[in-house]
């Protein structure tokens, strides 16, 4: 049954415009960041400073994407169809989460590969393939946290405009908090600030975009832990939720 629901979810996702729009916007952001780095700096910029830079916008874009996917299921009644077709809410939550992960991963891969290919011809190569792959995987773990929290919020809220406002707002708050904490850490190495910076997916995104992870293994563990926590909370909440 899980397989069928997942297939039906993906059929819906690929037949709607939102996934394509998200990829389109990320490519636009990628081009913008590449042009900025190419034209604004007087010195030769290394590829390490560009190749994951568009990921600054990734959290915000997928906050909208997931809000739209999930809330449209409430609006068009697909969530009702799934519950009536298969009375197992845990499975429904997990397959929904998985389909959103797949959609977000597609956006991530397209953005990362597009930026890599264009940057390869425009910037000096100062990283190894292995470094790139390692940071690429790190980015996937950051994505897990983003999707986990945005999916949980979207399921809880259910209404499109409200979900977009809350998720996008949260993404901006995390981004601004990461920028502030980054500044504070440059001035003084406070362990509490460091911890908050590490658990903030945007704090990790800052490390990804600069390709300077303080402790990637630790960050990945935190991401996996947060993702599991959000998923458990989401399943527990969804089991009790009345669907309108």
């Amino acid at each position, binding site marked *: 049954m899980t397989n069928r629901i997942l297939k039906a979810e993906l059929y*819906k996702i690929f037949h709607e415009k939102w996934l394509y729009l998200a990829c389109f916007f990320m490519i636009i952001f990628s081009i913008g960041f590449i042009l900025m780095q190419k034209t604004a700096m007087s010195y030769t910029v290394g590829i390490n400073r560009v190749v994951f830079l568009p990921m600054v916008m990734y959290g915000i874009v997928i906050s909208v994407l997931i809000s739209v996917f999930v809330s449209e299921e409430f609006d*068009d009644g697909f969530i009702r169809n799934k519950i009536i077709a298969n009375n197992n809410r845990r499975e429904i939550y997990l397959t929904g989460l998985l389909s959103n992960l797949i959609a977000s991963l597609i956006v991530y891969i397209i953005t990362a590969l597009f930026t890599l290919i264009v940057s390869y011809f425009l910037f000096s190569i100062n990283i190894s393939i292995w470094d790139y792959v390692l940071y690429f995987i790190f980015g996937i773990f950051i994505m897990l946290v983003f999707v986990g929290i945005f999916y949980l919020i979207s399921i809880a809220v259910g209404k499109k405009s409200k979900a977009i406002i809350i998720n996008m707002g949260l993404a901006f708050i995390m981004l601004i908090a990461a920028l502030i904490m980054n500044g504070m850490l440059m001035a003084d190495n406070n362990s509490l600030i460091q911890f908050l910076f590490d658990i903030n997916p945007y704090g990790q995104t800052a490390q990804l975009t600069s390709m300077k992870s303080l402790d990637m293994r630790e960050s990945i563990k935190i991401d996996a832990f947060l993702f599991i926590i959000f998923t458990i909370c989401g399943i527990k909440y969804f089991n009790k939720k009345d669907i309108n």
Partner: protein
Amino acid sequence: MNSIVSIKNISKKFDKTYVLDGVTINIPKGSICGLVGPNGAGKTTLLRIITSLQNADSGQVNVNANVFSGLIEEPALFYEMNASQNITQQLILYGLENEFNPNDFLEYVGLEDTNNKKVKHFSLGMKQKLAIAMMLVGNPELIILDEPMNGLDPQGIISLRNLILKLNKEGVTFLISSHLLYELEKIATDFIFINHGKIISEMTSEEFSNANKGYIQLEVNDRDSFEKAMNDLEIPYVEADNLKMNIFSNYTITDLIIKLNDYGCIVTKCFNVETSLEEFFIRLMDENDK
């Protein structure tokens, strides 16, 4: 009796108010069961609980159907897709995309000519038909419909009625909530009446016909002798006007005239009045509210 849905002592509260209060019902397999009640009686909540869209605070729900479908309030459709893509989506959900052609379902409800028209451009009747077509995917044993005739034109109502009867003949059980009682009366084999979250009456259409053959309206010359006769013979009646009485009994008009005559009461006018489901429902609600 073989029940397809069996509900035991279901209760549901919203903000300290009971929307359903100890509801116990059985829906017979193969029936078309009409769920009748005024607005706010708890019909939709009951249907939502049967379809697992809402959780009951207490009680048990057993649905003995391998596959069942439900159309609760708004049809669940994807407006950016065409009719065929909507059906395909449902076929995938049931793992049947390689076994059936979406057009078979569209033909069944008369939507085979919609081609690539997006559902957002469909009329209400077309959307309702498409929703029914989607519900047929998976060959459900039970179909739950909440106000399916709302907003349909007369032609749409007739075609939906015929479709329900056709599917019922093929063995599909229906649980239908509707305000259009004259429509429900034409198709339902069973009735469940609900008010203030409680089941107030359950009957088959046969029982309904027997219990509501109608009533006899009499106009008499003397109220006192009429009342004495009715009390002695234990015949229930309702006063329609001063000397105009509505009598609910198995007595024929002739029998009543003779009996009343024995008590010195002369019948000046009399006739049979048929009771519709609508009239029965209003009477039932009045009695329940008292």
